[in-house]
């Protein structure tokens, strides 16, 4: 019977090296992501106002959060903004992708034009659209000057009932090109023989898209919805730069709500509670998605 010699120190170090290399990153993520989330959760159950205090208050802050009319404004705005943003981005994205897939000669010129807004900061986008939508000097004014239509009005950005739609317009401007690219990649991935087969089978172009191509784009739809929903919930910079949350609180979103309650209104516990609600919202979308993605990849 042979006795295996104890592995040398060098050998053991080699074996542990991969884990040692990964350890700092993992530690950072554990502390700064998961640890901080727990910390925020603790704060949301405390009586913190201007500064963190660790006196247990149970779900008091959540109760106060859901008694804030402002929070409902933020949720309602998120629902309006989010749904318009997602639906219109997907509609424009799919439409443009299908058009661009018709053997367009100038595709190489058009594609980068559709996509460049994605490279811009939301602050830049907000600044540009704030100027463009300025009723006195922007688009409204330009239309009046150029067409002579003196009663033309486009003052949504100053109207509390319409301002949230300007946020959606700017957001759509920024992200729809990206959604187009996602769909275009999906379209290009479809076996061209399949389209030929459908043509020979007698399907019209419209039928080919309706019955074969669009059903095949399901993964692209799913990705687009997830990405856009995630971006909508996190939207902060765009609103700040475009409307500053106003007029009044007309364009308040959960993200701006959290920031102002935490840092300017000294309601840290309520701010933390709103952050936790946002986190749960995102987790509800992302966890199942990431889980299925990872499972698929590992199969």
């Amino acid at each position, binding site marked *: 019977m042979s006795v295996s010699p104890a592995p040398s120190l060098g050998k053991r170090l080699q074996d542990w090296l991969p884990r040692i290399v990964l350890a700092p990153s993992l530690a950072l993520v554990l502390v700064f992501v998961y640890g901080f989330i727990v910390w925020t959760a603790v704060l949301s159950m405390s009586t913190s106002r201007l500064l963190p205090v660790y006196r247990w208050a149970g779900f008091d802050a959540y109760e106060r959060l859901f008694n804030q009319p402002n929070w409902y404004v933020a949720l309602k705005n998120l629902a309006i903004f989010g749904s318009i943003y997602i639906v219109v981005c997907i509609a424009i994205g799919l439409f443009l992708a299908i058009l661009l897939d018709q053997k367009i000669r100038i595709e190489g010129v058009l594609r980068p034009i559709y996509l460049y807004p994605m490279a811009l900061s939301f602050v830049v986008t907000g600044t540009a659209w704030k100027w463009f939508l300025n009723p006195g000097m922007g688009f409204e004014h330009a239309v009046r000057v150029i067409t002579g239509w003196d009663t033309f009005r486009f003052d949504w950005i100053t109207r509390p009932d319409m301002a949230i739609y300007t946020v959606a317009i700017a957001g759509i401007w920024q992200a729809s090109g990206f959604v187009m690219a996602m769909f275009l990649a999906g379209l290009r991935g479809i*076996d061209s*023989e*399949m389209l*030929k*087969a*459908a*043509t*020979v*089978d*007698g*399907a019209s172009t419209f*039928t080919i898209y309706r*019955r*074969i191509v669009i*059903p*095949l784009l*399901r993964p692209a739809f799913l990705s687009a919805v997830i990405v856009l929903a995630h971006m909508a919930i996190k939207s902060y910079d765009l609103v700040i730069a475009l409307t500053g949350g106003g007029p009044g609180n007309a364009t308040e979103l959960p993200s701006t709500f959290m920031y102002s309650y935490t840092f300017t209104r000294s309601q840290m516990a309520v701010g933390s509670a709103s952050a936790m609600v946002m986190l749960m919202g995102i987790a509800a979308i992302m966890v199942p998605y990431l889980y299925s993605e990872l499972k698929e990849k590992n199969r």
Partner: protein
Amino acid sequence: MAFIEIDSLERTIGGNKILKGIDIELEKGGFLVLVGPSGCGKSTLLNAIAGLQQPTAGDIRIDGTSVVNLHPSKRDIAMVFQSYALYPNMTVGENIAFPLEMAGTPKENRTKEVGAVAKTLQIEHLLDRKPAQLSGGQRQRVAMARALVRKPRLFLFDEPLSNLDAKLRVEVRAEIKRLHQNTHATIIYVTHDQIEAMTLATKIVVMKDGIIQQAGTPSEIYNTPANMFVADFMGSPAMNMLPGTVTADGRGVALDAGAFTLPLATPLTPGRKVTLGLRAEAIGAGQSGFGVTLDLPVEIVEPTGSDLYLWLRLGKALVSARFPATVEQRPGAIQPVWLDLNRAVIFDTESRERIVGAAQEPALAAT
């Protein structure tokens, strides 16, 4: 008038001629195989027949009427693709029914016809599955079912077996053959595999660089290739090619490979550069007709189970010879072989075209 007539068909893409004047005729019920190396234009030709790519000149007639201006779906054809092109979002049954649905067939008729076709191809148990759940061979059958269900006047196959493994390929090949025999369908079939071409076709068209090299029955293509390209491309192992010069009396060829002179069945102009083509089965044991016996050293022994191929040294050249598997031989030995020059095909070395083919002049065998 033939059933399918293709008339000086051309296709140019960006100044690049893919098809350079293709003429083909095919009888009703014929099985035409388009064969050639990749890039020879065979798939382009098939797509042109299907209407998926437009020819720049020429005409395609089916049953006497031109179809070049017709939409693919109006040509009454069905096509089986290399990737099978099954619609992954539909079940097998829906896939097969799709062409009928597009043609406006009522639902109950559709179900009936799909059932009938599925029965023929033994895929009834798969009708509710999605294509992703099928094996390669099953997908292939579904693709064929989808083509068959339309009962078109012409079937097009675009390399339908190239995604299958070797064993399955032989099985499905036999099945396609049986299908053709049973239904008497007219088929045009594209492949790069010369064995598929030989086994399936009633008529083979060998293409290269957008030009038809030869059109004929499998035996014509095999035994009397029109030029050295066809001789080399069709058959395995490839035809032995022995370049040489016609002797002063015009009755023999002095081989470039070495000190051999082979007699010619038909006299040729003295001094002409020719290449003598000889299939492996024309070199072997036996001793009949017109030929010579040579004692050649064995270099490589290749048993295939059914046959034994010997690679023999002929001067500077190496020739393959086919023997029954019962022959025992080892490298280094001397093997007496009979060269059946009756079956030799003679090409002009310069133009690479055939000059004399044994099959065309059987009378000379007696000389």
